[in-house]
């Protein structure tokens, strides 16, 4: 049990007084950074990176890891409370978290998010501990065909759903794909869909702009309309007993939790993917496999649990290619990577051998950070609930300001703020016309990953689609994707026919 002794050694390092203090402080800071719309773990880690020169490298990465973890927990808070995704990784949490809050079940959603994050993070870190080197090899072998097949599988989960109107879902996906194609194309180097020559479109449409527009602004407009300004936002109450009852009730969502954790971790270890696609895919799969898919998007607790467990598992997963391959799996790990270089540690396949104290101290600190994030988060739930009890006349302007800030921060470009306002109005109209909006968000995230992968694969194969079916991983993904796509559609067609015959 070499790993066990290394891990115990790591725990000894993580529980040194300085490191433990940094973990707790980092989790608390991360929680609030994550909860602020627009500010995510990327910004938090980047802003606090220079602070870490004051402490030894191991303490530094422990601190940044704690911030990263805390932010993953915190992202869910504003998604649930205000309907604005707190961070890109928490977009999927708004799909069901916000409806739950509106139904007065905000405390339940918050507890679910915290507990799911804990489970996802724990599973992720255990997988990391036990299987880091072989998983790194799998990630290494993942080429463009596998990435495309995986993305196709994610799209399939969103199309073939019984509950929603298929045509409207497809429309939503396609509009998202078109938005995702805006900007400079990697492969040809040419700009696409930049509307003449508007410089703001060159970097593409940041999907957070779309998500905040649709879910923040659009949601606010919708709330104002249906309530005619007379809103009692939430009736949620909170007590220790209720938190406990909620936790007990959560045991029923174990399927979504496990699904989110494993899927999220796996997507997280793929270079260039990260926690955002992981959480969206977990949502899609949870919905696909549920017995009651029609309740998703209307406040189903599994719709909170799946993406939240996935984004924490994925954030742990993203550390794997960073440490073992020197390739960041997410934007945040890219910044951590920069930090490691200046601390004199070269990430890559050798880091496990050359710096075991650093690696295992860090892994052990992830266990600790996970636990403290959970405790801090639950301790603050009453404060979050209090925010919801503010009158809507106060809350609406606050939401609006947070949306504007959240749209501006990622790129520091006013262009994106205008775009976000337009998306807000479009989102409101789509909502009125009963279009599902989650598929559009999914498409704008996954489209820019899927499209180059498709073209790279076809370049490699000389235009033949057989490349997707002759490689072991990609062929399995392709068959699952096709099955997911065809089966529900076929079932729907059969149902329609049966209904017809029954009527006659």
């Amino acid at each position: 049990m070499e790993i066990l002794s290394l891990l115990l050694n790591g725990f000894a390092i993580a529980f040194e007084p300085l490191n433990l203090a940094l973990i707790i402080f980092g989790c608390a800071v991360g929680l609030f950074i994550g909860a602020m719309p627009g500010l995510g773990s990327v910004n938090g880690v980047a802003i606090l990176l220079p602070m870490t020169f004051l402490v030894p490298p191991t303490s530094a990465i422990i601190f940044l890891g704690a911030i990263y973890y805390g932010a993953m927990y915190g992202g869910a808070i504003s998604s649930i409370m205000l309907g604005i995704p707190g961070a890109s990784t928490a977009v999927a949490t708004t799909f069901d978290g916000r409806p739950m809050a509106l139904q007065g079940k905000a405390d339940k959603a918050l507890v679910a998010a915290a507990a799911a994050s804990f489970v996802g993070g724990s599973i992720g870190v255990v997988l990391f501990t036990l299987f880091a080197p072989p998983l790194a090899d799998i990630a290494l072998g993942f080429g463009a065909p596998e990435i495309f097949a995986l993305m196709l599988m994610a799209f399939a989960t969103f199309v073939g759903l019984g509950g929603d109107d298929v045509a409207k879902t497809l429309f939503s996906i396609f509009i998202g794909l078109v938005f995702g194609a805006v900007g400079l194309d990697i492969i040809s180097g040419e700009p696409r869909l930049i509307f003449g020559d508007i410089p703001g479109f060159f970097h593409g449409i940041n999907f957070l702009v779309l998500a905040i527009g649709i879910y923040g602004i659009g949601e606010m407009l919708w709330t104002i309309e249906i309530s005619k300004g007379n809103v009692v936002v939430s009736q949620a109450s909170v007590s220790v007993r209720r938190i406990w009852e909620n936790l007990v009730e959560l045991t029923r969502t174990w399927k979504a939790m496990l699904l989110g954790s494993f899927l999220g971790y796996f997507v997280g270890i793929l270079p260039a993917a990260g926690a955002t696609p992981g959480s969206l895919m977990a949502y899609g799969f949870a919905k696909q496999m549920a017995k009651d898919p029609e309740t998703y998007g209307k406040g189903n607790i599994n719709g909170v649990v799946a993406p939240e467990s996935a984004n924490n598992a994925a954030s742990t997963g993203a550390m794997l290619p960073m440490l073992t391959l020197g390739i960041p799996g997410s934007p945040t790990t890219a910044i951590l990577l920069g930090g490691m270089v200046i601390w004199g540690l070269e990430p890559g396949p050798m880091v496990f051998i050359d710096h075991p104290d650093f690696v295992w101290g860090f892994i052990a600190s992830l266990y600790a950070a996970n636990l403290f994030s959970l405790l801090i988060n639950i301790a603050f739930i009453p404060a979050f609930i209090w925010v919801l009890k503010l009158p809507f006349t106060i809350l609406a302007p606050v939401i609006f300001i947070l949306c504007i800030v959240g749209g501006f921060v990622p790129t520091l470009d006013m262009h994106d703020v205008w775009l976000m306002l337009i998306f807000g109005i479009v989102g409101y109209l789509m909502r009125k016309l009963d279009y599902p909006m989650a598929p559009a968000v999914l498409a704008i995230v996954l489209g820019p990953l899927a499209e180059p992968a498709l073209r790279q694969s076809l370049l490699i194969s000389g235009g033949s689609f057989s490349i997707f079916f002759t490689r072991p991983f990609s062929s399995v993904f392709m068959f699952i994707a096709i099955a997911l796509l065809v089966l529900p559609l076929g079932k729907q067609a059969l149902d329609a026919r049966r209904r017809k015959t029954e009527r006659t």
Partner: protein
Amino acid sequence: MKTLWKSGLVGLGIAMISGLGAVSVPTDAKAWEPKKPVQFIIMAGKGGGADKAVRFMQNIIAKHKLSSKPFTPINKPGGTGAEALVFMKSATDPDHTIMFTLNSFYTTPLRQPGLGVDISTFAPIGRMAEDTFLLWVNKDSGITNVEQFVKAAKAKGDAWIMAGTGKNSEDNLLTDFLNKAYGLNMKYVPYKGGGRVAKELAGNNADSTVNNPSEQLGFYQAGKTRPIAAFTPARLPLFSDAPTFRELGKDFVYFMQRTVVGAPGMSKEAATYYRQLFAKIYGSDEWQGYMTKKSLQGGFITGDILMRYWLKEKAVHKVMLQKMGAIK
């Protein structure tokens, strides 16, 4: 807009008053300094050589407190640097916008005159290094020298995959050179960033690459990939087993600049500030150590000398692109 204009006037007034007050103070005291965070644009993706270098410099600045304001790295990898160049061209605050460039600084404006980018309008801050290129293969292939490489690539024809960083990028130029020099027909597949390219080779999803040392070093040390020849005038100390193409009878030497430039329209004062700052970074023990470790070469050049270097390199690349048929 009105209030902005007004506060601008007030600011100007304050600046004038403080300027008058400063007459008797030594010139150092009113030297230009950044007034807000500096945007440090990277014309390549995350995890590649340029990205790592910028984050390294950002950390040197922070560690030695060389600037009172932070430097924020921003990746603009789209279109082989086109996204970054267009961003720089239309920068709203040129005094706080700098960029770390590669050779796509020359090639992209040459290929896409429609972008309207004229590199002679950029402010020459400092060349931090010249990066080197090697030809890499996966160790599983069993290839140890160029002769075997040519044989294997010829046998596979256009099913031989060369992964690179973008269409008509440095990697593409080198691929074209190899295709022409050895009569090969390798297929060039672009990926986002040199880190990703290195990974594709290590994962056996590509047959060869022309990565910089810093991008492949980790995989090389782990025994996954192997350099078989270098595009340098002399063998690199880190990879002394890999001969140069010159030794192999193909006179081809290619470097990539790693240079900091200021946005067009940057004031003289700001440019002077950045020149001094990056000269300090170049001289730091950290940067010198980084250059050795990453097998980087080249001295620090700045100002007019750097501008002349650009114009010379631009002319060289123009000829290369014409030979490739990428431009007329």
